[in-house]
């Protein structure tokens, strides 16, 4: 069986074009790198201070000074470059990222995103997320369609504190591929075997459903 991670990762990978500079968030978004077509080479940024983020090093080959934004050991590919945090966020805020891929707690039909705190429960801080969402040219949300308890995460209006207002462009879940437009969330593609009714049932926001919907894959 194909995992949600693979379904989502493969679809997002198709959104990139050769040469794009991209920032992938921790968790599900990181997996996107594994599903890039062979003819598309993207450059990854790590907001703690470099471009040219490469794969996890072999055991014993870790360098204490080369970690990703989650603090995990990674590598820097040939052609990579290091910089300080001001430059790193100049890249992010200045529109130099083709896209950022992030997880979400909630996203809504205005393109609002909440992914950094649950008041009174979980307050990790926004880290670089607010800058990424405000600055990247495309904001792509990669997440499982519903919360663990089955409650919807794609809402009419976010109830948690926002990460940014009206910045989300695409939402990709194991059920479908959606685009956030000024009219609302348009259902563009459905995962194999999923119907428009299925996905709407797990979504609080009213999806805009075109006559024909492509199959995601």
């Amino acid at each position: 069986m194909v995992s949600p991670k693979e379904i989502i990762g493969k679809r997002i990978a198709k959104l990139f074009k050769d040469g794009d500079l991209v920032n992938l968030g921790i968790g599900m978004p990181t997996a996107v790198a594994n599903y890039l077509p062979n003819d598309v080479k993207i450059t990854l940024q790590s907001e703690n201070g470099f471009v040219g983020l490469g794969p996890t090093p072999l055991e014993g080959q870790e360098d204490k000074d080369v970690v990703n934004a989650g603090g995990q050991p990674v590598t820097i590919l040939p052609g990579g470059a290091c910089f300080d945090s001001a430059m790193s966020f100049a890249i992010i805020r200045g529109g130099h990222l083709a896209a950022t891929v992030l997880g979400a707690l909630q996203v809504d039909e205005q393109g609002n995103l909440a992914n950094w705190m649950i008041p009174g429960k979980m307050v990790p801080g926004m880290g670089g997320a607010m800058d990424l969402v405000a600055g990247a040219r495309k904001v792509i949300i990669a997440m499982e369609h519903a919360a663990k308890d089955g409650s919807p995460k794609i809402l009419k209006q976010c109830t948690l504190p926002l990460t940014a207002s009206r910045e989300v462009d695409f939402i990709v879940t194991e059920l479908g591929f959606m685009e956030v437009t000024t009219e609302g969330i348009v259902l563009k593609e459905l995962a194999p075997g999923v119907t428009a009714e299925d996905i709407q049932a797990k979504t609080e926001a009213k999806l805009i459903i075109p006559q024909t919907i492509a199959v995601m894959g």
Partner: protein
Amino acid sequence: MTKVVKREDVYDKFCDGQIIMIGGFLAVGTPEVLVDIMVEKQIKDLTVITNDTGFVGKGTGKLVVNKQLKKAIVSHIGTNQETGKQMNAGELEVELVPQGTLAERIRCAGAGLGGVLTPTGVGTIVEEGKEKFTYDGKTFLLEKPLFADIALIKAAKADTGGNLVYRYSARNFNPLIAMAAKLVIVEAEEIVEEGSLDPDEIITPGIFVNMIIKG
């Protein structure tokens, strides 16, 4: 004239209530020896400005666990459960700042700027209490400088005049805080003679640095 000093010279500089900037990102590029000196001296009521509160036994996290902080100005506290616990108990004030905004606010202090306009945080709780500007259809928040009494830097290499180079992702906030504090103390993995670094490879010019210890 060398800026290399002894551990006790550094020890003497810390006292209760100081505002201290500390380099590092999840403890990578954090000067652990300098943090340990603060832990040993048991100074209290500190305000710390740094990217994150590290881990329970690592980086700035050691100061949190030891209850030496009054306030933390940081972008992230999720990797150190002790920070959240003290925050919820009302023992520690936490000001969460978006990471890029934190970088710019520190840079403003070092660069003599009164603030920057950033789009980050518009439409979120970050904008509370801040002046907003809209022009050409874009909205920005005015974010003001962050100054410190002491900056604690981790460098890969220092020359005796204080010129610094960093390694890979250990650079992060170090070059920024080096410009924003009254006293700048460096912990260097390697110390070389002044004049042995290429002027073009130096990231932090020695003019910003006051003291260096071997880390």
